């Protein structure tokens, strides 16, 4: 739990634009322990997704880099599975086949056919989707698709699970339900998770640490909040917990006082 697991050091990134390079991130430093749940929070456009994509290996940092278990990250791979915001399931495959594609890729030669089948079903079970495993994405609801997306990521047995606003497109009730599921899964598997969110409650409820980002351009980490609440957490009992509300207030203060929405600033 205490050894250095994932190290993001001095990460900056510039994107070329017609009017010269645009510096999106500047000097991001973050060290994450194994089994830790970290949320990235900030206003839209502050580069949260960019940080995640750099860790995933989908973007390459202009300077600095990411080290996972002593190895530099320079390309995407299943050890850093990503749960995308809009599920990104292949629409022509069933839930089972979507996970199968990932499992076959990761456990080729390591698991027998029978073991793979069991593993796929186990992961669908974990997200409570075993009843609809032979349905295509178009036949299931948004929340269910996101569950399958999570199951696909979990099935890769990633060292780090990267979630890009995984529940952002869901309605409030479904979202709460999914958060509870995620708490339950994390409790069982103790994955290292980096999750992007713009929902303060979600961040406090789920995270061990909340990383608050400043507004771009040249965004960086503004403040890190340790959330020292006992796990597993329950949203109903926490609602009246003074500690919980203090954490919430701290994040809100950062977001709405110290880092005002850039669009408001212009106006």
């Amino acid at each position, binding site marked *: 739990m205490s050894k250095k697991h994932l190290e993001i050091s001095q990460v900056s990134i510039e994107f070329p634009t017609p009017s010269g390079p645009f510096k999106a991130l500047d000097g991001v430093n973050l060290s994450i322990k194994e089994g830790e749940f970290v949320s990235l929070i900030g206003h839209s456009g502050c580069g949260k997704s960019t940080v995640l994509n750099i860790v995933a290996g989908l973007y390459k940092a202009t300077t600095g880099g990411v080290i996972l278990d002593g190895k530099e990250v320079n390309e995407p*791979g299943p050890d850093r599975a*990503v749960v995308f915001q809009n599920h*990104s399931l292949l629409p022509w*495959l069933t839930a089972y086949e979507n996970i199968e594609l990932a499992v076959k890729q990761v456990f080729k030669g390591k698991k027998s056919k029978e073991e793979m089948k069991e593993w796929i079903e186990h992961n669908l079970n974990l997200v409570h989707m075993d009843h609809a495993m032979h349905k295509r994405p178009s036949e299931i609801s948004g929340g269910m698709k996101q569950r399958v997306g999570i199951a696909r990521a979990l099935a890769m047995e990633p060292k780090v699970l990267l979630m890009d606003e995984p529940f952002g497109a869901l309605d409030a009730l479904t979202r709460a339900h999914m958060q509870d599921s995620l708490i339950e899964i994390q409790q069982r598997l103790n994955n290292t998770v980096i999750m992007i969110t713009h929902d303060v409650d979600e961040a406090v409820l789920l995270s061990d640490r909340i990383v608050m980002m400043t507004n771009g351009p040249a965004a960086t980490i503004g403040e890190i909040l340790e959330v020292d609440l006992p796990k597993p957490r329950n949203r109903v009992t926490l609602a009246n917990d003074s500690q919980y509300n203090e954490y919430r207030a701290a994040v809100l203060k950062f977001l709405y006082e110290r880092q005002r929405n850039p669009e408001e600033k212009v106006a």
Partner: protein
Amino acid sequence: MNARVMSMIESKFMTKLLSLSKPEKINWDGFFKKTVNKVGVPLMAIGIFLAIWGAVASQIQTSLGQVPGPTKVWEQTVALYEEHKVERTKEAAFYERQEKRNVAKLAANPEATIKVRAYTGKATFFDQILTSIITVMTGFIIASLIAIPVGIICGLSPTVYNALNPLIQTFKPVSPLAWLPIVTIIVSAVYITDDPMFSKSFVNSAITVTLCSLWPTIINTTVGVSSMDKDLLNVSRVLRLSWFTHITKIVLPSSVPMMFAGLRVSFGIGWMVLIAAEMLAQNPGLGKFVWDEFQNGSSDSLARIMVAVVTIGLIGYVLDQFMLMLQRSVSWDKSAVLR
């Protein structure tokens, strides 16, 4: 008040009557509406079209007599079918005679060399239809086998796309009539065998169809592949799929709708091109039939050409419906409305 009660009684009576008349609960109302929309309306439109055709045709006098109306064209359709039957009977008789002759020859002298000749009668309208369909299929299949891989490569690699795009855009608008002389001369220079499997005219027509029906498939496949959902590409990258799995599991399925749209346009163009090529080059097929009738210039010629026109259209329609069926069977999105 009275009226309301009356209408209530009436409606009750009606429901009772209806429930009596249809114990298995067929939705006659819906069925009727659907039939009218799907069958009645098109039939009416065709009827109006035939009426206008007949009325206009009777007003125009040509060097070959009056422009034929629907009745005349139908008469010629029947006549063409009769000719076909007669020709078939002649053919059967020819083979029978030949067979008899050969048997007799062998009976007289077992060492005798016998000759088996193919019947060389005139190709009927229906023979020409078959020739045209086989030719267009061949040309189209060759074109698709080239165009789909090229389209996929162009879609995946912007460099290849930039390299090939000017060529594609240049050759795309070239008329089949311009390709044909080139194809004819090259084929007669290159395709030289003692025992040709296909006739030269067939090769000429098929290659011309290929050259003209390549482009829409290439362009549409390129667009389909390059406009793939970026998230799905990222999924592929995170999973580190091999290029083969990437193509078969992600690229192909997601570009199938666009690809088929291209294939159908290609097929339509191929069919149009074929008729023109057959006319110009006197290659066997429906195009030749039209040209022969035009040269013939009898009083039936115009009606016979019109039979060919309608046939060409109907075959094109049927083949397109066949493609649509194929598209439906390979399309993963069963909810999409395909027309």
